[in-house]
């Protein structure tokens, strides 16, 4: 059974259709990236998953339970951070979390200390949220999403407002949660983070899913990408490259020479190098999610 499944979601705001038959599924244990440019429909989709807004058509299922029909049951093991974290500003961080333990008695009080420690907010627990920085609010949002050990954690732009160290910590936390068997649904515009963190992803554009699949497979599902070649005799390598490719497809790389080429050109060029006595040390495809994302957007 899928952990989270969206089936043909449709949603319009007035005359504007913001979601058009959006379907994707998240397996248990996935770290699932949900990508798309601003206004693509990511937040609308997440709000439909959370039952904050209703889809015009289609359905959302969590562990096979339809959210629109049995919300309480469906969301019983889901933690969410949706966009900008929302808290009662006149209450302390600790009191905000205490409201959740009062709401759900199955969450033990010690959970508050545990999650605050994870997000490094123990020392600010008694401070009113209105005095928190954006980064602290973001971390508190992640803390509340983890309360009660939910099996599915939905994080909408969790890295917003975090400094580089906190971002690294967040990435580590996501991996740790995955190792604990959690499923993570991660919506982010930080492509690098999604590439590093997620095993599967979905790209949404203008309310339509345009790609879905394993990140590693999708990354190389592009017509051409950069490959970094390094050789002992680098001058000969560059000469061979210039003979085979246009100048705008060649540029210096960190460890050698970058050449933008089609996948089928890679073995041919390696053969050329070998036959030309160029002593290759490595040939590494460097397709990034950014390249992939941009190529899709451009197409």
């Amino acid at each position, binding site marked *: 059974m899928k952990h989270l499944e969206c089936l043909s979601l449709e949603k319009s705001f007035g005359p504007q259709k913001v979601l058009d038959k959006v379907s994707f599924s998240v397996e248990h244990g996935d770290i699932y990236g949900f990508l798309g440019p601003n206004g693509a429909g990511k937040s609308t989709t997440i709000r439909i998953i959370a*039952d904050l807004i209703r889809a015009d058509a289609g359905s959302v299922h969590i562990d096979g339970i339809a959210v629109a029909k049995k919300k309480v049951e469906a969301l019983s093991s889901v933690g969410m951070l949706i966009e900008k974290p929302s808290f009662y500003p006149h209450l302390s961080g600790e009191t905000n979390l205490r409201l959740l333990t009062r709401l759900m008695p199955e969450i033990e009080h010690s959970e508050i200390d545990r999650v605050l420690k994870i997000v490094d907010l123990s020392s600010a627990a008694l401070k009113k949220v209105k005095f928190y920085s954006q980064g602290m609010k973001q971390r508190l949002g992640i803390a509340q999403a983890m309360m009660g050990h939910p099996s599915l954690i939905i994080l909408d732009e969790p890295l917003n407002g975090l400094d580089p160290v906190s971002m690294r910590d967040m990435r580590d936390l996501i991996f740790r949660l995955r190792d604990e068997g959690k499923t993570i649904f991660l919506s982010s515009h930080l492509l690098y983070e999604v590439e590093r963190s997620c095993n599967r992803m979905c790209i949404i554009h203008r309310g339509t899913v345009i790609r879905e699949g394993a990140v590693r497979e999708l990354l190389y599902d592009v017509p051409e990408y950069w490959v970094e070649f390094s050789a002992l005799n680098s001058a000969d390598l560059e000469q061979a490259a210039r003979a085979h490719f246009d100048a705008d497809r060649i540029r210096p790389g960190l460890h050698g020479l970058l050449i933008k080429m089609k996948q089928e050109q890679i073995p041919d060029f390696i053969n050329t190098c070998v036959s030309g006595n160029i002593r290759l040390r490595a040939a590494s495809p460097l397709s990034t999610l950014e390249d992939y994302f941009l190529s899709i957007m451009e197409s």
Partner: protein
Amino acid sequence: MLFRLLQIEVFKTFSKWRSYIGFMLFAFFIPLLIIIAHYNGGLDEALYLESTERFLFTGNLYNAYFLSFLMMNLLWIHLPFLITVAAGDLFAGEAAEGTYRYLLVRPVSRSVFFVSKWLTNMIYTFLLVFFMGAVAFFTALPFEGLGDLLVFSPDFGVSILDRGDALPALLKAYLIGSLNVLTISSLALLFSVFVSNAVGPIIAAMGLVIIFYLVEFIQISFFAAIRPFLFSHYMDSWIYVFYPHIPASDLWLALAVHGVYISVFTLLSYTYFMRKEISS
């Protein structure tokens, strides 16, 4: 779940300082008025201001019961205004701060969430009305003591209740007064569901109440025809309990009208809230 949410809502309401404005004003001004009145003529002055008739009376009619009755005149405008400050914030405040989703993304049904808010509104309304009465009574008690209860009204004249009947009658009047004010707080709650600014519901609800009061007082035949259908016509129904000659059916009719308005306001709020798209 309802009880847990209700606890949370009551806690949230009373964790905001604005919820105490009404309590603070009553706690300060009612004792002040009673003390000033005590040293400035007591009942003579009060009756002189409130009635054109003249009386000769013996015994202690200017007492804690009488002052608790007198304070009920605040139920017309002052107290409803203070109630709407809290009621208007119940939903609109959440929308303004984007906090709806803090609880609603949890396994909580919207209908239970709504009911908990509605009950919080009711609790707040009853608390403030009874707090007003308690402050009046307990402040006046050491100064004026107890005695028979004198009540007067431009519509029904003067009535005097034996001291043994005074407290039950006052409690009943305050209970009915709370229900009357609940109509206005339910109206504020209705506006609160629609908007994301807590000031709007206060202005809208009080604006409508004042218009209804104008209809009550302006002598035009059309207004006279519609008056019986407006809740404002029955805002003083609490006073019926002090006049034994007023038939019980009048009180039931008043309560029924308030009940219908409360039900309609609540139903509209509920229906809209259940369909509301929470995008903040």
